[in-house]
């Protein structure tokens, strides 16, 4: 076995450049496949870690539509009823306020930048487990005055990066007292300007009816709470209540990634097959060139099997080296990509083993015909030069 490897290695070393080039073909295919699998695995690992950090025990309750197709509304008592469900740990109501927020009053009213104005209860921040980029959230004191807390996207679109400035909300100036960090589980809040319920009712003509209610439950009772939420929020019309779990949307992203991964893997496989054709080509040429060597080895007592094994081993060594190189390159690409997105690196071991297996299989298939041809060569023909 060691002799065979030494023999194959020697054969490749004698044609160094050609060997490197054909191994590079295999390496490219393998690198593509490993990188695709590695990046998608890293992305999934990252997503799971993110879900873990955000928690999957956040639920939202929103008014849906009536049987007639009109917009429904939640009863005023809904937040209070929900907060009395045993395993519910905290509840915070928000509601849309039909007005706009702009940088100044000179900007046209139609240019809202996609920013919504919402009234929010002071405990929204703790219920969403959000953090402040700067300033403070609404509290019992500030929610009675024209003060506003901006979501991360809203702040960016309004061009406001620190507290203390003013924005034109409704038809008067509101002071910005806080800017939120990103809230991955509530992207609608990222695009909102939040004011207190009292000020919404006094200055912005809101009726104060609850819109979306956010709640955190005991993590072990999420499903139980979920099943009773609709009848609790609206005992008369439970069918008009929409209950959802925001973390489900994040998890669904994983499924779309998988479809894309399949496509990229297919491209990697094509690259690998092209690499295999390259190896087969090099081996066929090698057999033609090395007729004298084959003849000599037969004269020295090599059997047909010896010759066949030698050429097959060369092909396997070539593709194996390409496979190893490809795994290294693919892992490096994954690491670089993951580092760029500050993910953890996850390269699945089965993918590495599969990639090496694919490389060796390609090598065996590509080397089989040339090896058989070399072995079939009659010694007398091989020695005739």
């Amino acid at each position, binding site marked *: 076995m*060691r*002799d065979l490897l*030494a*023999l194959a290695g*020697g*054969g490749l*070393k*004698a044609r160094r450049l050609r060997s490197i080039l054909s191994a590079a073909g295999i390496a490219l295919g393998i690198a593509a496949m490993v990188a695709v699998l590695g990046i998608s695995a890293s992305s999934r690992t990252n997503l799971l870690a993110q879900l873990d950090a955000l928690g999957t025990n956040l639920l939202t309750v929103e008014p849906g539509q009536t049987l007639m197709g009109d917009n429904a509304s939640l009863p005023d008592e809904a937040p209070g009823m929900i907060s009395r469900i045993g395993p519910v740990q905290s509840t915070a109501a928000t509601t849309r306020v039909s007005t706009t927020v702009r940088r100044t009053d000179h900007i046209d009213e139609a240019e809202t930048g996609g920013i919504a104005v919402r009234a929010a209860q002071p405990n929204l921040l703790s219920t969403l487990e959000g953090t402040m980029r700067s300033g403070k959230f609404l509290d019992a004191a500030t929610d009675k005055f024209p003060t506003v807390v901006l979501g991360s996207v809203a702040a960016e679109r309004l061009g406001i990066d620190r507290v203390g400035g003013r924005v034109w909300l409704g038809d008067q100036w509101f002071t910005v007292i806080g800017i939120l960090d990103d809230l991955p589980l509530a992207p609608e809040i990222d695009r909102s300007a939040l004011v207190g319920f009292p000020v919404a009712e006094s200055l912005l003509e809101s009726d104060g009816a609850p819109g979306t209610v956010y709640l955190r439950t005991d993590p072990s009772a999420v499903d139980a709470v979920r099943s009773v939420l609709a009848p609790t929020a609206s005992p008369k019309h439970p069918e008009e209540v929409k209950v959802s779990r925001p973390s489900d949307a994040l998890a669904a992203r994983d499924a779309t990634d998988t479809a894309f991964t399949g496509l990229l893997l297919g491209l990697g496989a094509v690259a690998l097959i092209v690499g295999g054709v390259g190896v087969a080509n090099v081996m066929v040429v090698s057999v033609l060139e090395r007729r*004298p*060597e084959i*003849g*000599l*080895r*037969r*004269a*020295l*007592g*090599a*059997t*047909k*099997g*010896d010759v066949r094994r030698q050429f097959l081993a060369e092909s396997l060594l070539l593709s194996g080296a390409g496979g190893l190189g490809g795994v290294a390159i693919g892992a490096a690409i994954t690491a670089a990509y993951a580092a760029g997105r500050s993910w953890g690196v996850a390269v699945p071991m089965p993918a590495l083993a599969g990639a090496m297996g694919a490389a060796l299989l390609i090598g065996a298939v590509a080397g089989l015909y040339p090896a058989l041809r070399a072995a079939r060569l*009659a*010694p*007398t023909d091989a*020695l005739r*030069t």
Partner: protein
Amino acid sequence: MSLNASHSLTGGTLIPPVLELRAASKEYPGSPPVVALDRVDLAIHSGELLAIVGPSGSGKSTLLHVMGTLDRPSSGQVLLEGQDVTACADAELSRLRARTIGFVFQQFFLLEGSTALDNVATGLLYRDREMSTAERRERATAALEKVGLGHRLFHRPGELSGGERQRVAIARALVGRPALVLADEPTGNLDSVAGGRILDLLLELHAGGVTIAVITHDREVAERLGRRITLRDGRIEDDLVPGRAA
């Protein structure tokens, strides 16, 4: 004598010839078929030094291939050390060839990427598959020293002169201690000085007990060797043994 005439009696022990052809013929298909060897009878005994001469087209190459078991006769028999190998399977024949016959070719056939030492060690690769690399190299070193190339162990063929390359090839043929060395035009690619030295070496090896058959078209070379077999049109025309009348 009732014994087979081709056997020699040494010290009371019956020793079969190293190589024997019995009515060996080789025909190549075609119309009409080409008869390259025509019922050749030939026995080579241990310790002999012989030349097989003949013009080109006389069947020398075919004879070499049949003697070396690289090709099978169309009819007749080939015996290696008394054993009929005519019907042997390829693998068995390869094994016997590795142990019994050492080849020296006109074109040397050295592996360009390997050192002289590794080229010679390759001569043992298929002979004794249990032998370690270290031992193969050790024996290869001894063989290279025997042909006067002890100072060229780690040179590659590209760094050696033609005469030195042929010495490496001879060392490779000798390293497995074959019963018979078959040399096909060993001086054919060398100038007369280098060729003369190679012949000196073959004579010296023969004096040391190696059995050597040299195939050549060169009468001058043949004259320096012992027994001379002349081939013409696939037949043995003449078999001259020195010291014996034709």
